[in-house]
């Protein structure tokens, strides 16, 4: 079905890249539609795409330093990411991804539509369900005590109550990303360094605090001192029960 289209598009993208790079096209649940990445890069790209795509805007990205290369995961459409793995510098990779995004905008959007239509590509969208947030708090019209309660003849009283699935819980999240890693060289304080090292785009401030067993305020205030080196990915996510 869409496999052939993906392969053709991937080939076109590869040929158009101004740098030598391995690439992958990844969906927002981490499924890889095309990849020439190494297994290490592929695994990292899957994880980043899965966490980042639901939160990012189109054009947002994350760069991860691998052993011998740099991996860029770039949100190229609403539900697709382009991963580039290359020895080139971060800025060059970002420019390359931007170029791909503008050159293949139509094809990528069409591909996304095709994938959405495919039955194998089922994604749980992070949107609020249409059900009320808390059904038990909804007001029901009160019935005056004098009026007799008579069910309509066509509707027999239900023997079992319909099961109401509770609405999912969502929370606002702010995920810090250390975009200027050169600051790490200047930091001598071990704790500050640990905080900054955890700003890898996959930990919220609350998770960083928990991992280091420090108050969240310490993380927030520390990151405030590195505002030029830190970017935040801000969004909403479902709270795992």
């Amino acid at each position, binding site marked *: 079905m869409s496999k052939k289209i993906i392969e053709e598009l991937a080939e076109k993208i590869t040929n158009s890249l101004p740098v030598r790079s391995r690439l992958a096209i990844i969906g927002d649940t981490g499924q890889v539609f095309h990849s020439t990445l190494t297994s290490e890069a592929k695994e990292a790209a899957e994880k980043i795409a899965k966490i980042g795509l639901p939160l990012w805007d189109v054009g947002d990205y994350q760069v991860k330093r691998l052993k011998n290369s740099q991996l860029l995961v770039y949100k190229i459409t609403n539900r697709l990411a382009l991963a580039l793995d290359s020895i080139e510098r971060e800025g060059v990779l970002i420019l390359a991804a931007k170029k791909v995004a503008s050159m293949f905008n139509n094809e990528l959007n069409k591909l996304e539509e095709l994938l959405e239509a495919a039955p194998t590509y089922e994604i749980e969208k992070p949107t609020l369900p249409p059900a*009320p947030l808390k059904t038990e*708090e*909804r*007001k029901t019209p009160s019935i005056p005590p004098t009026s007799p309660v008579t069910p309509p003849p066509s509707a027999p009283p239900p023997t079992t109550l319909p099961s109401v699935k509770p609405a999912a819980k969502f*929370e*606002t999240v*702010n995920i810090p990303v250390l975009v200027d890693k050169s600051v790490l060289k200047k930091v001598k304080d071990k704790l500050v360094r640990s905080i900054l090292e955890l700003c890898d785009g996959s930990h919220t*401030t609350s998770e960083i605090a928990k991992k280091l067993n420090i*108050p*969240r*305020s310490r993380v*927030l*205030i520390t*990151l*405030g*001192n590195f*505002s030029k080196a*830190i970017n*935040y990915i*801000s969004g909403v996510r479902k709270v795992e029960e």
Partner: protein
Amino acid sequence: MGIKGKIAWRFMAEKIHAGAYKGLVQAIIAHFLEEYGDPVKANALLKKLGRATGEYIYTTYLAATKRPAKNLRDLVPTYNLGFKYFTGKEFDEITFEEKGKDVFITYRVRECPLCKGLHSPHPEIFMCNVVAGIFEWIEEQRLEDWNAESVTCNETKCRARGDPYCEFQYHFKLK
């Protein structure tokens, strides 16, 4: 606010039109009332929205000013700076009161830019309660620093419901 603060507010702080914020608050309150029909709940939900905004606001503030409060008393100038940074206006009056293990800090603003021109649909709805939620969330993160066991912040007066000023009151319970 010193000259640096004034320059920061004028040239560096990102701004949106106050009308955009107020229009959104109006719509949110209308939605809560329509959905739940209960002004007390609508008011509590406004505060909940503020709490959910807390981290975003606090990180934005810290990135811009690099000035977290150093102690409880320092919350007086710190919140004044924060309010100025986000709204362009300082509080008109701030009181700090310590009664044993209870600390009360009260912030008052007469021409509140957040509700100026708005009219509360019900006396139980304090239209700037979002701010109280933000304040409460931030100080909850710092309880350990203040050696406190709990903190609450509420909007206790609001111009939108006919009060002469908007008032936000912190209550810290120290350990």
